[in-house]
């Protein structure tokens, strides 16, 4: 089973190639696989009927109880034969229906085979989840098949409608699947059927499942998609809409009937809705002029008939329903195929234009005659036998004199009369001579070739023999009807052609007579039907879609105002509510403690400065002033950190604040000096209110967090852990060892932020061409003695690449200048003092940064602080010597620094795996080296080195982007005539 299923999808993958090579004849090859599967299923039949059912399972995800389970009982066997047998015939038909030049044929072939495979999987699946997966796959493939002619609007529309409706049903069904599976604790269908769960939840779930089944089988109120789907090519209609996809819903009802048919809701949704659909759709079919639409409404009607019968839940009904399913596929598919042949031969399928075709296409007419007769239920054909069996089943229900069964039977007889009526209309419409129409000229019609007709002919022959030889099938069909759970009715399970003159025979006769009467007065019936039509389903569907669309727009429009302050306000309000309300409730539980004004009086000074500076930020309108005030809060915070007992934090905060200030100034030099117009006063008051609330919340939080503490802190054990890790600075150990995972995540964020900064400034490339090609610190040197005007022209912004040509000058200049790059800056903006200082301090600062990196383990410092200090060294060079000096100072690209940083950090983390430890485990190293003597270290130093490089890369990136790049851009802006390097 499994390999055959997989083979279908493999074939679907190679099918496009075959069609590409061999044109339409490739379909004959493609047909071989479904045909082989059908033969295999028939060969298995004796074993399946005798039982036990063959199964095929693969453990897929045992932890989630997901099993790929396939199982073939009698019902699956019948469905497999139908699905694959008809698939093979339709593929053969495709080989003549299409021309090799048909656009999209390559895709069509693949999708068609994949659809057959999905259908096969659906009927074999023994797991509700697997069934659902194949169920949705058929929806997707049917979308592609119906929309085959993607150029036509109607075709696309029909495909979308079918997809929307069936997917809606499918999703509803999914909810039901989950409820049933979770209630029963098992998703295996065979287990569920033999031991069905019960309860209110299950009833709801069953209703949801049935919504899926009804939508797939196009029953009311979901029937609109099937007639619309007639825009598909005829083979698709014949396969999907007669034999395969629409039968999926029927199959599901048949599959679950033994388990749930005793529920009243089930009876209403299957028998009730099915019967209503049979009558109403049959009535609608009576007035169709398009042959395919006529068949479509007829199919909807017959599907209602099938579901009503199979949903009834007695063994006789199940038996008859399965026979009817076979008979329906046998007559409906050839009728679709014949319609395709007629369409192909005449170019129309409107019965108002067709006349006298029985003479032009006698063989086709013969096929149509047999199939139509079977549809109308005339003896001795398969349709007749099946319909008689259904009538018998409802005549002899489980409880004698049950009035709903009689009512259903009456409705079915009415529906059968309609069936006879539209069968006659089809045959007459397609083939008969019409008085007011001339026969179609032979020149415009052509009969089908033998291969084109063969599939329909084969099916018609089966219709013909299906009646007299139906008895042979009885034991097989009885295998399904005796499934435990079905109620035993009072009739015997057999299919007889001659059943004696009973009530069923009379009912058939009534239906036949009624149908012929309807056909006799067909024009009046059609007029009456058109007048009585209440609702145009398509218009309702469009209106529903439009309403949903408008609703979605309104909801989006109402919630998504596009204003950042509004969004932030909502977020903050939510935060206030979610945190504030529980906080207010626990506040009384917090033990009252003596308030302390300060830990040491010296805390008060920075606290006051920070508070005043912060308030000042709100008021001032000068941009730089506000930035400086914000910086003061930062420095003040650093001081508070130190007083709290966190020198590492103080150091880092000082460094970061300094870098931030520099960066702010670098960018803000471009922006206007003052903030633009302040926000409205009402808005400002509201902002302030929200701000005060947030401040109060944070302050309360800080009190409660400490005062409400009940457990000892986890960091109690950190001291011992740090000792074990061989360091004495616990914070540093926490960063690079105990909680190194956090640090890993954090440096990744930094890498992303740096990339973001660079990409906002260098829109296309991170690095300017010139800098990349520069062979070292090669900076073009101006001639100080030159004409100032010329100096400007020549040296304001020369590309670095150009320096290679002036390499000779470089040597002379470096001898003279403290910072060679600074020579590119106009004289009046240079500061010799700054240049000298920068030159002298640069290496000292770098050395300091390395010192901080190395001592991080034992004393204040670490990778973060070291990296920032190294970055500050570069900042000093840049501020003193301009952007060329920055390029000269570091030949490394920020991108590669960041990359190396990440690589080293992750590498050292992963290296622990090689030595058989967990990720990020560090090892203490004690070495005695010749010159240095005893060296004490830890592998976590390597990790810290990665952090150092990454932070340095971030700072270099910031300087290059927000410093050098902005310089370059403003230089270009000042001199637009210059071509960019």
């Amino acid at each position, binding site marked *: 089973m499994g390999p055959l299923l997989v083979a279908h999808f493999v074939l679907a993958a190679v099918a496009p190639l075959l069609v590409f090579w061999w044109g339409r004849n490739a379909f004959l090859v493609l047909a071989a696989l479904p045909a082989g599967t059908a033969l295999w299923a028939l060969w298995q039949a004796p074993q399946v009927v005798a039982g036990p059912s063959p199964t095929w399972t693969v453990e897929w995800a045992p932890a989630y109880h997901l099993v790929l389970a396939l199982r073939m009982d009698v019902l699956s066997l019948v469905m497999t034969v139908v699905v694959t047998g008809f698939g093979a015939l339709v593929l053969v038909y495709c080989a003549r229906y299409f021309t090799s030049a048909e656009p999209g044929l390559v895709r069509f072939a693949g999708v068609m085979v994949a659809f057959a495979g999905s259908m096969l999987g659906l009927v074999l699946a023994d797991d509700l989840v697997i069934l659902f997966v194949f169920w949705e796959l058929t929806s997707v493939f049917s979308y592609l098949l119906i929309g085959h002619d993607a150029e036509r609007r109607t075709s696309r529309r029909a495909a979308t409608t079918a997809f929307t409706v069936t997917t809606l049903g499918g999703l509803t069904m999914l909810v039901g699947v989950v409820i049933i599976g979770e209630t029963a604790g098992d998703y295996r269908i065979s287990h569920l059927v033999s031991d069905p769960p019960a309860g209110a939840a299950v009833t709801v779930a069953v209703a949801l499942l049935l919504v899926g089944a009804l939508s797939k089988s196009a029953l009311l109120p979901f029937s609109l998609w099937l007639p619309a789907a007639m825009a598909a090519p005829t083979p698709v209609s014949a396969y999907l809409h007669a034999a395969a996809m629409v039968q999926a819903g029927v199959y599901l009802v048949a599959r679950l009937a033994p388990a749930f048919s005793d529920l009243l809701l089930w009876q209403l949704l299957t028998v009730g809705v099915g019967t209503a659909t049979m009558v109403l759709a049959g009535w609608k079919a009576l007035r169709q002029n398009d042959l395919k639409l006529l068949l479509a409404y007829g199919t909807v009607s017959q599907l209602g008939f099938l579901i009503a019968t199979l949903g009834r839940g007695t063994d006789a009904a199940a038996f008859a329903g399965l026979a009817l399913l076979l008979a329906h596929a046998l007559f409906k598919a050839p009728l679709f195929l014949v319609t395709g042949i007629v369409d192909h031969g005449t170019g129309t399928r409107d019965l108002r234009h067709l006349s006298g075709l029985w003479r032009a296409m006698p063989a086709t007419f013969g096929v149509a005659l047999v199939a139509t007769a079977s549809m109308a239920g005339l003896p001795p054909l398969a349709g007749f036998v099946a319909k008689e069996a259904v009538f018998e089943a409802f005549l002899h229900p489980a409880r004698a004199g049950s009035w709903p069964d009689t009512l259903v039977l009456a409705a079915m007889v009415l529906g059968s009369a309609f069936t006879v009526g539209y069968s006659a209309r089809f045959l007459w419409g397609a083939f008969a001579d019409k008085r007011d129409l001339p026969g179609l000229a032979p020149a415009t019609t052509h009969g089908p070739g033998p291969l084109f007709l063969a599939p329909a002919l084969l099916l018609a022959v089966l219709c013909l023999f299906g009646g007299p030889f139906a008895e042979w099938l009885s034991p097989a069909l009885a295998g399904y009807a005796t499934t435990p759970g079905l109620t035993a009715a009072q009739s015997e399970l057999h299919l007889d052609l001659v059943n004696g003159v009973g009530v069923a025979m009379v009912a058939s006769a009534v239906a036949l007579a009624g149908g012929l009467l309807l056909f006799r007065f067909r024009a009046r019936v059609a007029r009456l039907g058109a007048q009585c039509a209440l609702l145009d389903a398509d218009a309702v569907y469009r209106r529903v879609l439009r309403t949903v*669309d408008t609703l979605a*727009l309104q909801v989006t429009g109402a919630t*998504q*105002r*596009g*204003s*950042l*302050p509004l969004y932030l306000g909502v977020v*903050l309000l939510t935060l206030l509510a979610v945190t504030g309300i529980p906080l207010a409730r626990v506040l009384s539980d917090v*033990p009252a*403690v003596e308030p*302390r004004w*300060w*830990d040491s009086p010296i805390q*008060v000074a920075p*606290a006051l400065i920070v*508070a005043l500076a*912060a*308030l000042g*930020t709100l008021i001032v309108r000068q941009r730089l002033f*506000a930035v400086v005030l914000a910086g003061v*809060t*930062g420095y003040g915070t650093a001081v*508070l950190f130190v*007083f709290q*007992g*966190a*020198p*590492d*934090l103080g150091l880092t*905060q000082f460094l*970061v604040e300094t870098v*931030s200030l520099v*960066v702010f100034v670098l960018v803000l030099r471009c*922006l206007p000096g003052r903030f*633009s117009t302040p926000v409205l006063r009402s808005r400002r008051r509201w*902002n302030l209110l929200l*701000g005060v609330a*947030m*401040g109060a919340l*944070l*302050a309360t*939080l*800080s009190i409660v967090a*400490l005062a409400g503490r009940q457990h000892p*802190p*986890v960091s109690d054990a950190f001291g011992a852990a740090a000792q074990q890790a061989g360091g004495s600075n616990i*914070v540093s150990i*926490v960063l690079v060892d105990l909680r190194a995972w*956090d640090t890993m995540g954090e440096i990744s*964020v*930094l890498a992303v932020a740096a990339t973001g*900064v660079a990409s*906002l400034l260098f829109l296309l490339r991170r690095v300017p061409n010139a800098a990349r090609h520069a062979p070292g610190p090669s900076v073009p040197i101006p001639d100080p003695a030159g004409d100032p005007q010329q100096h400007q022209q020549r040296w304001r912004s020369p590309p670095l690449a150009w320096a290679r040509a002036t390499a000779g000058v470089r040597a002379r200049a470096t001898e003279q200048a403290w910072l060679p790059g600074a020579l590119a800056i106009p004289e009046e903006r240079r500061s010799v003092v700054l240049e000298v200082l920068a030159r002298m301090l640069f290496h000292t600062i770098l050395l300091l940064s390395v010192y901080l990196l190395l001592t991080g383990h034992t*004393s204040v410092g670490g990778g973060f602080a070291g990296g*920032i200090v190294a970055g500050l060294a570069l900042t000093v060079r840049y501020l003193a010597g301009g952007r060329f000096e920055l390029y000269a100072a570091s030949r490394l690209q920020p991108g590669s620094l960041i990359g190396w940083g990440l690589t080293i950090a992750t590498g050292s983390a992963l290296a622990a795996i090689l030595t058989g430890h967990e990720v990020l485990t560090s090892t203490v190293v004690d070495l005695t080296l010749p010159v240095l003597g005893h060296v004490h270290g830890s592998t976590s130093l390597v990790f810290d080195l990665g952090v150092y490089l990454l*932070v340095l890369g971030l700072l270099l990136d*910031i300087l290059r*982007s*927000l410093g050098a790049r902005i310089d370059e851009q403003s230089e270009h802006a000042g001199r637009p005539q210059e071509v960019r390097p």
Partner: protein
Amino acid sequence: MTVLATGAATTPTLALVGVIGVLGAVGTTLLLERSLTRILLGVVVLSNAINLLILAAGGPAGRPPMLETQTTAPMNDPLPQAMVLTAIVITLGVTAFLLAMAYRSWQLEGNDEVRDDAEDRRILRAAEHGDLRAQIRAERERLARAEDDDLRGTS
């Protein structure tokens, strides 16, 4: 050997609580404005408030969490310190990113104000248009019906 300065339940000093409150209030207020620079200042100030909050939640002041010192005075909890340390550096990254955005916005628009999202505005307009269309449709149907009635009345 190492005693943390968080033995009994206690409160942080009111000096710190006050600073946290003021910084939080100012940061939030700035965050709600439209100028990207002021939003950025809000982020910076609010980060300081949160960093102080985390540190203050760790306990009262103590000696630095170093092992090799001679004193046995209680030391400050190292875990919040490590968390805040990473937060400080991340703030730097965010600051740089927002500044780059402010600069880019100034480059493109000539100011650093955060405008309302044009896409969202379009959706809002589309919803309003949808309403109008529905009204027009209803009106047209009403007129058509009235016309039918008139015809029926005259004939």
